[in-house]
């Protein structure tokens, strides 16, 4: 199989692999979907009992035990790991990630935890893509494309939304739109959607009715966009705060997850809307059947946000897509009810319309990916009529959200660790190079007690301008001799016999270590004006690092980036 594949043009290779990735990622999504339905139905028989509030706790604890003790997967919630793998690790992901989060998320959500299945299917699909890429021994830049194919296919299959899969991957994960990536990603997304439709049927999850959209409704979009952005910001901050609080608690991870699950279960006793994915809430709002008043809408909205932050912050496994959609639809509902109360004379487009816009607003605000929000809402509701309003809400929500929270929920963790590198930037190219790669080890080491004559002999045979000086006893680095330092002695045989290396060497040389990154190395180059720097680790000379070599590698890396 490898042989036939390698005969193909690189683009065709990627297209063929994208088809395979699309099929497997779709199967993973369908398996999770079916699993969630089955387990939720089975647990549904017991939901009416008093002890049902412990279900989320048991599910979260089992999920944590499964992740930490059975499959030993200590990764986070998934999407940041995929972004990290693409931006820093040539798309390498572990095989265990292709199933570990699926099982963990099944346990969390089916038991009532407030989370969605999307982040786990994204890492599962991405891991499938990565491992298929590795199986075919693809280069890093090709494997990155297969990872993106997997992520897009997973989203496309789980929402029956191919365009959302493509847009989400390129906007929120890859961070760039290039034709080389777009074609295979689109193919994987389409294939996955087809596989999902064959296995589960072609259904629009939340089909909406036709709306009569007036200018008043369009104007109200601005208010809803701002409210959605505020809700997004609050949700992101709650997630961060709850996560921090739970991490600081003593005890094993499964105990913390169980504690979060118990609190969610207790909330569910009073407000069952907060449990699980919550798609039933969206359906009720889209079908205009949510009959409770403004106050209850506000309470459910706040409770759902708290339940999501508790579930995910305490260590439960799951994603934010589904909770964001639910929170968004509740935001839209709440906003509609405020409008209806404040201006009863106006014939508003209805709670369904504002519910859709709220979903786009919150998901765009949290992911800071407006197009993902737009296409997701349009595809899962089949309502292209609202496109204009949805775009308006999404872009305003992202703008406001970015003002208060500069990074999306997926990027925050990476930004905090300094690991977020935007593609095709100077930093990205430099981060792909490491010190060992550019380290020059073919240097001539000289002794401090060496006479200059011997050094001149070495200079004659060498192509280098810098000569490191080492202590012959301890092997410690003592300094450097630059050709300029000895130029005046070169034609004086008398001085060559009398002057020693230690007399001409520079002992206060700026050095770098292997732990430094190339950004720091360039800072030193700029500050000192040097062309080469010695790399010294614990007093031992390891080699030289020169501007010319770095630039040479930089150029090669740039060419690789241009190819992709």
């Amino acid at each position, binding site marked *: 199989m490898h042989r036939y594949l390698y005969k193909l043009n690189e683009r065709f290779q990627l297209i063929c692999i994208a088809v395979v990735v699309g099929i497997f990622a779709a199967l993973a999504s369908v398996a999770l979907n079916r699993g969630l339905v089955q387990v939720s139905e089975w647990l549904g028989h017991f939901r009416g009992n008093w002890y049902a509030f412990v279900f989320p706790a048991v599910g979260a604890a089992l999920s944590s035990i499964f992740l930490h003790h059975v499959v*030993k997967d*200590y990764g986070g919630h998934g999407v940041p790991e995929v972004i990290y793998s693409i931006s820093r690790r040539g798309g390498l992901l572990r095989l265990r990630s292709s199933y570990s989060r699926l099982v963990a998320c099944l346990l969390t959500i089916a038991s009532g935890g407030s989370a969605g299945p999307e982040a786990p299917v994204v890492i599962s699909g991405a891991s499938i893509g990565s491992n298929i890429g590795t199986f075919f021994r693809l280069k890093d830049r090709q494997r990155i494309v297969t990872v993106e194919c997997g992520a897009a296919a997973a989203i496309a299959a789980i929402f029956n939304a191919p365009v959302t899969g493509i847009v989400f991957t390129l906007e929120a994960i890859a961070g760039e739109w290039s034709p080389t990536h777009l074609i295979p990603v689109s193919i994987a997304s389409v294939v996955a959607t087809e596989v999902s439709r064959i296995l589960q049927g072609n259904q629009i999850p939340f089909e909406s009715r036709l709306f009569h959209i007036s200018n008043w409704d369009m104007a109200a979009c601005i208010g809803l966009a701002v409210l959605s952005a505020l809700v997004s910001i609050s949700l992101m901050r709650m997630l961060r705060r709850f996560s921090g609080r739970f991490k600081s608690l003593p005890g094993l991870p499964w105990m913390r997850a169980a504690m979060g699950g118990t609190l969610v279960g207790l909330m569910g006793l009073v407000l069952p809307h907060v449990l699980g994915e919550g798609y039933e809430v969206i359906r009720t709002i889209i079908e205009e059947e949510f009959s409770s008043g403004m106050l209850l809408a506000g309470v459910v909205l706040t409770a759902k946000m708290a339940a999501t932050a508790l579930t995910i912050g305490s260590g439960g496994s799951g994603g934010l897509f589904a909770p964001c959609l639910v929170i968004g639809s509740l935001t839209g509902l709440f906003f509609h009810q405020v409008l209806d109360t404040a201006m009863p004379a106006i014939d508003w487009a209805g709670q369904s319309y504002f519910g859709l816009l709220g979903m786009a607003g919150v998901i765009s605000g949290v992911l800071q990916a407006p197009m993902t929000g737009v296409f997701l809402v349009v595809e899962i509701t089949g309502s292209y009529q609202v496109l204009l309003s949805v775009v308006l809400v999404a872009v305003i929500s992202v703008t406001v959200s970015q003002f208060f929270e500069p990074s999306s929920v997926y990027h925050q963790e990476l930004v905090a660790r300094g*690991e977020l590198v935007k593609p095709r930037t100077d930093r990205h190219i430099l981060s792909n190079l490491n010190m060992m790669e550019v380290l020059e080890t073919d240097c001539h080491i000289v002794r401090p007690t060496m006479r200059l004559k011997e050094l001149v002999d070495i200079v004659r045979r060498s192509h280098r301008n810098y000569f490191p000086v080492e202590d012959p006893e301890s092997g410690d680095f003592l300094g450097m001799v630059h050709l300029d330092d000895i130029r005046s002695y070169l034609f004086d045989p008398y001085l060559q016999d009398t002057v020693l290396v230690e007399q001409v060497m520079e002992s206060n040389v700026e050095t770098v270590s292997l732990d430094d990154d190339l950004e720091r190395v360039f800072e030193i180059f700029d500050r000192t004006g040097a062309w080469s720097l010695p790399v010294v680790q614990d007093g031992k000379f390891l080699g030289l690092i020169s501007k010319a070599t770095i630039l040479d590698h930089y150029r090669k890396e740039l060419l690789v980036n241009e190819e992709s």
Partner: protein
Amino acid sequence: MKKQLLHVFRNTPFGREVLMQSVYFCRKTDTLLRVYIPRYRQFLMYFQYEIATIDLDKSFLRDPDTAREHAEQIILAGGLKPSFITPKRHTASTLPDVPVDFDYMTCPRSISDLSTKISLGHLGPKVRVIIRNAHFPVLIPTPVYKEWKSVTVFFGGSHNARKAMKVGAELAAITGLPMYVFTQAEDRPRQYYEHSLLEGGFGDLLEERRFEWLFFEKGDFKINLYHVPHDSLVVVGAYGHGVIKEVLFGSVLEEIQTVLPNNMVIVGPEVQI
């Protein structure tokens, strides 16, 4: 230029022996010892085609307060300067990525299993993953500190064996220790192996008789292994098969590691020479 050896420190008496072996190796070969003291149960090593997920056994994290102090004591007693690495990159907040840009790495026979499992004939699955993917040779030390007085290279004529020969010859040259080459002829004449050595660029070694050739045309391989000096550092090439393939089909490495209690340097298929 200094080469570097990566050592993952286990703060137990067993870990002390292993670190002493690393210190000895570094001192003999003038290599810089770089020690990683784990703070989490797992770390990742990103190789070119595979991520090695190293699940450490509990003993690696035992008594973290004294780990650095113990490691420093052992390294200083061995005449080296302590040098510790702190991973700068993390796949997740509790999942550090340990760099792989080293020239050697020390691995006990098992890194993920309890040390009670460490015995002759047992190479842990994670150690096999490292051997299969690493571009550096892997030092598998004996469970108890043991100095070595010579270097023995296993040479069977293959490409991997030539890589092992190169590593072995380099180690013998740096340490100034005598070198043995062990060959079990497999229905092939001695000329075949000599030709392979010449092709590999070892003509000088062969002509100047810079090694003693333990060449066996007859006899059982395992029995002939008795002729390998007990205090020799064994250098052997490996194809890097997984544990199932190794057990089902066997390999020279499998037989050597089952029989010989020596310190071993395993040169995997991805080692760049």
